[in-house]
């Protein structure tokens, strides 16, 4: 009898708790309201102090930006604060920790206070979020784009995402080491500019590796680390090359089945990276992105495959700014004489269409302010170091960074930039499969056929899995 009573009580308490649990949502909203009110109070104070912008009457929403780039977290916060001061529109900036953007976005989007502004990494990333994207057709950011190439446009003409930063990658090299090399006995080249094909690159790299003690370097190429902080340089960025040339041959933009026409070239390049390296191939699984950046910036390696975004990581050490250059990644395919660097974007802004119209308006206004106001443009140039695809960023708003300068030189000299077709890779699963196979091949626990299999069959199965 007593037991029964206890269990009845338990059940009662549980249901009560369940009810409380359901009711909890209201509490959350209240809490959110409180947050808003406090924001508004802040505004009120600000407005008393300074002049009031007309905008506060027009836009009553707020902005919540889930930022992708942890290295720019603080800059975004500072910028947002200034925007709020100027317009009275509250802006919340949250930044996902490195490598957790998708998971953070997934949980944030499920909340009642979802991000109004978020990012996708290209067509493959958009697939998951296309139902959340507001059509940016009439937005200022889209109208200011230099070209439609920098927007994600659906088949029915909706502008779902707009790139806000353009980046370039290639083979970053240390001019000083290469000059030293050119002066050694029997050097294969007299000047870096003679490296204009894979054959030449390999010849030079092999010779340099043989003379590494004389050149006081540990290896020609910085370690091709396959830790998750670095493996994307090979499973994604290097893989871009064979995929691009295959698309070129077949006149495609994307495909559901890759043939792997240029896998041999991919292999040659990978072989070069792991042979003329600073470390033994068996060490690659544990080498990180920081390791490679450190090797290059300390002058222990002459070449380092990476992009313009890495400038801050490698600047300020042994390698002076004027000693940094960038070469195209020659894999021995296509018109190598006219090959340029790989330029594209992996950062597209999307506006959450499920947000209230007020919030959407506020968000669009914030984006416009960022790309048109002096303050926004200066932050992009000086603090974030972004090259953008917007017309509002005229000559004086280009960042000063030797890697960006090198990238611009290639474009100005009329070389053919290679687009980032890796954004058409069907899924992260494909990249991981290829990355693992590359690693196993490198350390000798697997063979190249496994890479081929992951590359070709993996593409097909991942494409099917994602698009069913």
């Amino acid at each position, binding site marked *: 009898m007593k037991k029964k009573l206890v269990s009845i009580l338990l059940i*009662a308490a549980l249901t009560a*708790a369940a009810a409380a649990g359901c009711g909890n949502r209201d509490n959350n909203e209240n809490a959110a309201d409180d947050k808003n009110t406090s924001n508004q109070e802040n505004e009120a104070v600000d407005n008393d102090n300074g002049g009031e912008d007309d905008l506060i009457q027009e836009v009553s929403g707020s902005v919540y930006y889930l930022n992708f780039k942890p290295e720019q977290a603080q800059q975004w916060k500072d910028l947002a604060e200034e925007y709020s001061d100027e317009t009275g529109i509250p802006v919340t900036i949250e930044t996902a920790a490195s490598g957790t953007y998708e998971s953070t976005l997934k949980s944030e989007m499920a909340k009642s206070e979802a991000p109004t502004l978020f990012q996708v990494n290209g067509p*493959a990333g958009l697939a998951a979020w296309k139902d959340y994207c507001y059509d940016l057709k009439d937005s200022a950011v889209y109208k200011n784009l230099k070209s439609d190439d920098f927007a994600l446009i659906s088949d029915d003409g909706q502008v779902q995402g707009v790139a806000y930063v353009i980046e370039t990658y290639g083979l970053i090299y240390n001019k000083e080491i290469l000059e030293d090399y050119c002066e050694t006995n029997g050097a294969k080249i007299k000047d870096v500019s003679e490296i204009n094909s894979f054959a030449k690159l390999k010849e030079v790299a092999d010779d340099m590796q043989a003379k590494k003690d004389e050149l006081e370097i540990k290896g020609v190429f910085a370690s091709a680390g396959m830790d998750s902080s670095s493996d994307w340089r090979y499973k994604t960025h290097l893989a871009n090359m064979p995929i691009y040339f295959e698309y070129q041959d077949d006149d495609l933009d994307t495909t559901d089945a890759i043939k792997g026409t240029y896998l041999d070239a991919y292999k040659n390049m990978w072989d070069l990276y792991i042979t003329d390296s600073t470390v033994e191939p068996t060490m690659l*699984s*544990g080498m990180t992105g920081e390791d490679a950046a450190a090797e290059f910036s300390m002058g222990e390696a002459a070449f380092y495959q990476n992009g313009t975004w890495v400038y801050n990581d490698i600047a300020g050490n042994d390698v002076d700014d004027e000693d940094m250059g960038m070469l195209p990644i020659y894999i021995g395919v296509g018109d190598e004489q006219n090959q340029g660097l790989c330029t594209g974007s992996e950062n597209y802004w999307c506006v959450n269409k499920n947000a209230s119209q007020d919030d959407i308006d506020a968000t669009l206004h914030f984006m416009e302010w960022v790309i048109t106001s002096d303050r926004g443009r200066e932050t992009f140039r000086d603090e974030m170091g972004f090259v953008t695809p917007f017309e509002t960023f005229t000559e004086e708003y280009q960042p000063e960074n030797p890697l960006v300068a090198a990238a611009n030189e290639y474009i100005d000299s009329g070389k053919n930039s290679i687009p980032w077709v890796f954004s058409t890779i069907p899924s992260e699963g494909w990249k991981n499969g290829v990355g693992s196979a590359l690693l*196993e091949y490198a350390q000798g*626990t697997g063979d190249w056929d496994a890479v081929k299999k992951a590359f070709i069959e993996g593409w097909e199965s991942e494409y099917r899995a*994602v698009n069913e």
Partner: protein
Amino acid sequence: MHKSLKRYFPVFAFPTLAAFTIGFFIPFVMGIYLSFCKFTTVTDARFIGFGNYLKVFTDKTFLHSLWYTVAFTIVSVVFINVLAFAVAMLLTKGIKGTNLFRTVFFMPNLIGGIVLGYIWQLLLNGILAQYQKTLTYNSVYGFWGLVILMCWQQIGYMMIIYISGIQNIPGELIEAAKIDGAKPAQILFHVTIPMVMPSITICTFLTLTNGFKLFDQNLALTNGEPSRMSELLALNIFNTFYGRTGYEGVGQAKAVVFFLLVTIIAIIQIRLTRTKEVQQ
């Protein structure tokens, strides 16, 4: 007294029950529902039936993770319990500095899993670097690395439980055994172990479920590398959920399968060890 206890029961129990409901019960029920859905965020799910479960059992990585986890759990349960028991025996003999040793052995347990994972990754990679290898060279290294890590972390905790069990054995039992001429090994197997059976039940339960549910250490130590070959079940579920668009539901279905598996195994284990317990 009894009456007032009953009267105030809801007052005292409510906060805990509310927390339990919000933190466990609701997510759990929602999780089961979501395993039958296709969704991107948890609030826009669309019911699709058993499709996700079919994909779970055709996923090779899941089956690999299952066997890898089972092997890891068996090995770690045996190592942790045997070693913890041995240390507990040593530290109940009244040797000098017993308290210091107990504290030192217990301390690793106070460090979080992620931190431990990274520390051991550095340590083990440092040793393996002598042989031009790293922890993620192949999954065998990752396996033993994980076993070493878990032993280091958990032996101290289990040791404390065993010590309290051993100290609760009435001295006269052991004395009587000695007078009857029992050898140390006989005392161990016929007096001590049967008497600490309740502790063994608890410790095997804890290590078994810990082994199955292990996540942070796995994530920090190897992150499933190479080729998802050192991926335990929990990490496999996590990677399924976030790894590929449209597979959130499959990850959720795996989580439900995982829950059933751990529950069944834990119940069997408790039944088995309970029957061996003796009343004092």
